C-alpha cells in the first residue's frame, strides 16, 4: 500500500481566462507506514497535492497510484467509492456538523456503506475510548471544545479503518498543548501501521521527531526533498 505520483499536473479551469496551474509535474513516492509532512506556503499547491493523494479528484495529467489503484482515470463515482475505503481525512477546520452529536459525526462515513445503527455504535466505541471522548459521545458537536472537535475529526477519519490518514493544516486552529496532543495521537496511528500525510507549515508538525520525511512545495513544484 503506497502512494506514487509520476509527472502529476493539475490545472484548474483549463483553457479559460481563469486557468490556474496548481501542480506542475510532481513526482513522488510514499511508502506504507511512513509519516510525511507536506510543507509550503498558502497557495503553493499542497492542498491540491493532498486532494489528489486523497482521491478527491484525479490529476489533469500524469499517473497517480494510491494503494493498488491507478486513480488518474477513475470516474468521480469510483473515486468516491475508493476514497471511503482507503482514505481518512482530517480537515483544517475539522468540518464536523455542529447540530449532530459527537457519535453521529464520527459514524457519518458508515451511512452510505449500509452499516446498521448498532454496528455503527459498536465500531465507534473503541475510537471514542482511545481518543478519550466517550463522555462527550451524545453532546452536540457544536457544544464541545476545539481539542475535542479535533479528536472527533480524527475518530471520523478512522471509523472505516483506512490505511491512509491525510490531514490538511491539522494544527492551524489549535494551541501548542492541543497541537502536541494531536501529534501524539497521529504518532500512535503511525505505529499502528497507518500511512500519515500531514500538510502543514507549522514547525511543530514539520520538526516532529516522528516525521520521516518533509516534502517542500512551492508554486506547484517540489523543492529539495530532504530527510530529517
Amino acid at each position, binding site marked *: 500500500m503506497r502512494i506514487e505520483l509520476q509527472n502529476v499536473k493539475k490545472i484548474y479551469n483549463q483553457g479559460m481566462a481563469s486557468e490556474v496551474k496548481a501542480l506542475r509535474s510532481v513526482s513522488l513516492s510514499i511508502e506504507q507506514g511512513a509519516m510525511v509532512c507536506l510543507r509550503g506556503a498558502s497557495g503553493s499547491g499542497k492542498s491540491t497535492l493532498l486532494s489528489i493523494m486523497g482521491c478527491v479528484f484525479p490529476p489533469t495529467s500524469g499517473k497517480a497510484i494510491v494503494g493498488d489503484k491507478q486513480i488518474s482515470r477513475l470516474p468521480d463515482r469510483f473515486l468516491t467509492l475508493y476514497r471511503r475505503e482507503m482514505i481518512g481525512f482530517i480537515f483544517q477546520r475539522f468540518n464536523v456538523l455542529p447540530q449532530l452529536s459527537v457519535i453521529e459525526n464520527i459514524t457519518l*462515513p458508515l451511512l*452510505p456503506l449500509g452499516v446498521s445503527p448498532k454496528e455503527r455504535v459498536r465500531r465507534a466505541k473503541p475510537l471514542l475510548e482511545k481518543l478519550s471522548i466517550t463522555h462527550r459521545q451524545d453532546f452536540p458537536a457544536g457544544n464541545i471544545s476545539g481539542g475535542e472537535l479535533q479528536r472527533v475529526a480524527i475518530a471520523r477519519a478512522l471509523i472505516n479503518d483506512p490505511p491512509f490518514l491525510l490531514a490538511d493544516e491539522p494544527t492551524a486552529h489549535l494551541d501548542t498543548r492541543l497541537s502536541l496532543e494531536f501529534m501524539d495521537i497521529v504518532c500512535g496511528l503511525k505505529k499502528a501501521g497507518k500511512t500519515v500525510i500531514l500538510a502543514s507549515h507549522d514547525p511543530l508538525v514539520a520538526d516532529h521527531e516522528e516525521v520521516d520525511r518533509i516534502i517542500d512545495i512551492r508554486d506547484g513544484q517540489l523543492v529539495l526533498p530532504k530527510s530529517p
Partner: protein
Amino acid sequence: MQINPFQRQCNILDYALSSLWRRKLKNAGILVIFSLVIFLVASFQLLTRSLLGTADEILAFAPDITLQKLSAGRQVDMSEARLAHLAGIFGIAETMPRIWGYYFDETNGANYTVIGLAEEKIAAAGFPLTGQEETGFLKRGGVIMSPAVRDNMGLGERRAFSLFRPDLSQVSFRVAGVFSKETNLVSGDTILMCLEDARDLFALDDNAVTDIAIYVTNPLEIDNIARKIAEMMPDTRVLTRSQIRKTYQAVFGWRSGFGSICLLSALASFVILAWDKASGLSQEEKREIGILKFLGFETRDILALRFWESGLVSGLALVIGLTLAYIHVASGGALFQPILLGWSVLRPELFLTPALQFSDFLLLFSFSVLPYLAATIIPAWRSAIIRADTVI
C-alpha cells in the same frame, strides 16, 4: 466491501428525518402552508364530487322526461289536455301534470320553489318526510315544505300559515309534512302542494300546468320516446333525466373548474416559492452537502436524502390537507358552498358525504407532491454535484 442496499436506504432515511428535525421551524412552516393549500384544493374537489353524488341521488326522484311548452323561446303554461296526446305514445308508463313556480316571500326576503302535483301523485311519490301530519293524500290546503323554508318563515311547531296571490289576497295553508334532510339539495327551498292549490296561489287558468312529468316503462326507450314527443309537439321542450344530469354536471363542473383553476394557481405559486427557496441553498446546507460528499456520500445518496426530506414533507402535507378537507366537506363544506351552490337567499342545509375517488387522489398527488419533489430535487441535484473538495 458488500453493501446492504436496504440498510443503506434506511440510514439515509434516518439521516433525512434527523435533518428535518434539525430544521424543524422552516419545515413546520412549509408543512403548514402546503397543507393549507392542499386542504383548499382538496375541499373544492371533494365538495364538487359530493354535490354531484348528491345530485345524482336526488335525480333518482326526477321524471324520465319533462315536457314544457315554449313561446318566443320562453317557457309558458300549457293545458292539461296535452296529456291526451301523450296517451297515444306506446311505452309511457305514467304522466304527471305539474305546476312549478317561484314565490317571493317579501317579509322574509326569500324565494321559494312552489310545486303543485295531483293529490294522488304526491301520495304515490313517497317523498321522504319528517314531521308528518297526514299519512294519506295531501289534501287541499296542505303543503309539504323543506326544513329551511319552515325555519325561514319562522313557523316553529306552528302548522298554519298564509301566502299571497298575485292580487295580494291571502291563501291559507297548513304544514302537512316536512321533507327529510337527505333531499335538501333539490328540495331546500321547496313547498309542495296540490295542483289546484298551486293554480289558486299563482292565479292560473283551470287545467293550466307549467310542465308534464313523464315516466317511461323501459329506460332504454327514454330518448326514443322523447324524440317522438318532440316530433308530435314541436312547440315544446322535451328534457330527459340524463340531460338534466348533464346540466347539473356542467354547472357544478364549471364552478368547480373555475375555483380549481384559482386554487391550483395558489398551489403553483407555492411550488414556485418552494423552488426559489430550494434553489438558493444556504451556505450551511452547501457545506453540509460538501462534507457528506467528502465522507463518501455519492450524488445519488444526496438525491435520495433530498427525496426523502421532500417526500416526507409533501406526503405529510397531502395527508393532513386531505384529512382536513374530508372533515370540512363532511361538516358541510361551508368555505366553498357559496361558490358551488350560488349565493341564494335560502341555502339548503347540506349533509354531504365526501366521496374521494382514486382519480381525485392522483390529481392532487400530481399537482402537489410531484411538483414539490421536482421543485426541491432538481436544485438539490445541482448542489449534490458540488465537488467534494469544496470543503477543503
